[in-house]
């Protein structure tokens, strides 16, 4: 019994059999797939802690049915670093102290990754991206600093189109 769902997960072909394809992708990532880096903060799409990339777009994995991820490309915080080399977004959050407790951090990291994949962001885009993710510790000041630094560090970004 169950439905087979296939997707590319952090670059690897992944197949998972789920009894309920309506279950949130978040639960499948954290449960059977063992990727606990993605966090659950509210299960209603509000807090942004569960943000992952689906086909490059940052979305709340608590509201995405796993069946809808079929055939797509999913990227989580575990897939952010390239082996032992940190992603520029991670480097920036580290150097700017863009986190405190770290629970909302994976969601921020993924959203910022998606943002920078679109090229160098404007300040308004930075603010809009950070705005979708609750953080109860930092007051967002150092998160915004981290995003700007990440944009500077990000070699893959298209520069100068702000």
């Amino acid at each position: 019994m169950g439905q087979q769902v296939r997707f590319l997960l952090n670059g690897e072909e992944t197949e998972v059999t789920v009894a309920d394809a309506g279950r949130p992708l978040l639960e499948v990532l954290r449960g059977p797939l063992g990727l606990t880096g993605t966090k659950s903060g509210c299960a209603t799409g509000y807090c942004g802690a569960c943000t992952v990339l689906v086909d490059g777009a940052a979305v709340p994995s608590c509201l995405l049915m796993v069946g809808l991820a079929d055939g797509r490309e999913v990227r989580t915080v575990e897939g952010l670093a390239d082996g032992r080399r940190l992603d520029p977004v991670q480097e920036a959050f580290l150097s700017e102290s863009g986190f405190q407790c770290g629970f909302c951090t994976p969601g921020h990291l993924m959203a910022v990754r998606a943002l920078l994949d679109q090229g160098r962001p404007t300040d308004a885009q930075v603010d809009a991206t950070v705005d979708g993710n609750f953080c109860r510790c930092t007051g967002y000041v150092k998160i915004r600093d981290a995003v700007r630094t990440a944009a500077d560090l990000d070699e893959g970004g298209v520069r100068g189109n702000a």
Partner: protein
Amino acid sequence: MATPDVTAPDLTEPDLGLAVEPSIIGTSVQRVDGIDKITGRAQFVGDVRLPRMLYGAVVRSPHAHAIVKSVDTSRARRVPGVHAVITSADHAHRKWGAFRPDLYPLAVDRVRYVGDEVAAVAATDPESALRAAELITVEYEPLPAVLDLDAAMADGAQLVHDDAEGNVAHHFTLERGNVDEWLARSDVVVEGTWQTTRQWHSSIETIGCVADWSPGGRVTLWCNTQTPFLARQRYATALGVPESQVRVIQTEVGGGFGGKSGDDNTSVIAALLSKVAGRPVQLLLSREEEFLASRPRIPLRFTVKLGFTRDGLVTAKDIAVVADNGAYTGKSQAVLGAATVRHDAIYKYKAVRADSRLVYTNLVPTGAFRGFGNPSADWAVGQAWDLAAGELGIDVVDLLLRNAVEPGWVSPHNHRIGSCELKQCIEKAAELIGWREKRANPTPNRGLAIGASVHVSGRRSFGDYDGSSAIVRLTEDGRATVIAGEGEIGTGARTTLCQIAAATLGLSISDVSMSTADTELTTHALGALASRVTYVAGNAVREAALAARNQLLDGVSTLTGVPAAELDVVDGVLVAPAADPDLRMPVGAAVRKLIYRPGGTPIVGVGAFDNPSEFPDESRFGNESGAYNFVAEAAEVEVDPATGAVRVVELAAVADCGTVLNPALAQGQVEGAVAQGIGMALTEWFDGPSATPDRANYVDYKLPTAGLMPKLHVAFADSYEPTGPFGAKGVGEIALDPIPAIVASAVADAVGVRIHELPITPEKVFWALQEDE
């Protein structure tokens, strides 16, 4: 959107009496737990997986007050995958609580608020546990409920607890000096009543526990608690077992703010489920449950009378406080105490009087939240000061400066003020926000306000002890491990304590690590509360590091013949510049030489520190902390008169926390506290009676988001606390305290209406403006 402007802190270079690597103290070193937190590796309680682990779910009361007539669990037990179903029959019927034990692990006969725990289930997966919980049938006989302070205090009101006459859970009065006489002699007296509301900590990680009760009788609890040792004490009481049978291990904690300081039943229920199931059980609150089961900020109603001489010197203050305790007490008794007396260490009152009452209601129980009563006291008293400035015709900055406490001041409650740069904070905050210029050139619908607050650096609360202890072990490869039970709740305490150890030992920060908190393996600690870790635990770690350093130097002295007093450690290498310029022995080599020899000795330093403070008496008289930290904050707001909406445009926060050990971490504490203060003032509320969660989720309850943050100036006073580690004091809570009050006062300055009841909703401002016309 405004760009936050973080001002670099001013740092003094005190004489530390040690060879301190200046690059460690006062430097924003990278967090020692940073890599784990930015790679998803950090293990929070929800990430703990044990073999055969079950998942818990809780049945909660839908009634504010009812008799539990029966609980039928038979259908739940038949759900496949269910391994335990528990009710009040499965616990020892011991009431527990930090100060006034009034809470059962699961309700016995009676439920007292919507959300009260009645039964629980453990099953092989969360869905089955939830489904089984839904199949438990509870028969209730509803009782009248008291849903606000007035109803609870009315004559003949329904009692929430039969042993609390008049629903009073706690009551105390105090008078220091002759308040009536001072008020009679005052030229200006202002008065008013102010009310606050429940605010939820809303850590993005909810409260949770993994419990594993072994057949041998011992239970291990992996908790996201702020206070592992205090939690163990209380949970053992609740479970009816000796403390020695309970082991608490702290997982990573996804935000605390007082909400994870162990006054709720979550871990107790997880333990009971594990005992019955004979398997580990993970119980993690959903966001909805967190709004019902955690212990939010206690609503206080403050009536204030404040007297001044014509030239603006404060005379006396008279307050009456009633507090909506909710259904159970937790730490609210202590919160009320702090709200009553602590703010008397901000200004030089000649006489104060208070009557404070903690009142049970059939609402969500309350407890500790960053600021611990101070933000609520400041909401009332801070606004009274702002009113007084108006009445006196004195600029409020000048009024505060004229009355601010100074080093050496002793408050009416015997707060003995040591280091204190409150005046410097006030002046800097005014300067950073451009007070004089903005006052000279007012903008329509914009207003300014300033306020100040004080906080402890640790407080004697749990018996006559507010200490900490630590072990520092030098390892054979030349590193150091700090073993301490204080833990880490996200603030960066682990990093700060490692910095203190590294600076004391002459090691680089990358060569120092710290244990997780574990009641079995680490030193005893009271944990992350009362802004105590940097000051109290910092001193203990410094003592332990000094002890390790002395052992090392004594040992090397016997090996080399160089007197210990001539030896020093610089960058991880032992040197003796004067006695033996050629000596260069890496610490690791020295440690190995000292161990690998007949009768070899490892280097293990033990340190302890007890806060140099007094255990306050029943009337709250006593110097509660060895060091006080201060803040002054100024805000500019803009009001849209067409809607009543309030926006904080610019805000300056200047804190006196002694030496700033790690600027990025200290700034982070201030920035985060400001955001929570803005939330308390402007965004965080539920609809319904006394803010009972109706749709208990973020749909209705709104945390401030990035877009709501003002242009922010954060700075620190040039300050040094002689009793602190490298001159440091606490900074974790203070910056939240004045925010709601200064937002309200700035609204009054902008459009002439003053809000007396939190939150400051656009609707309240709008109707007040309509009345004003």
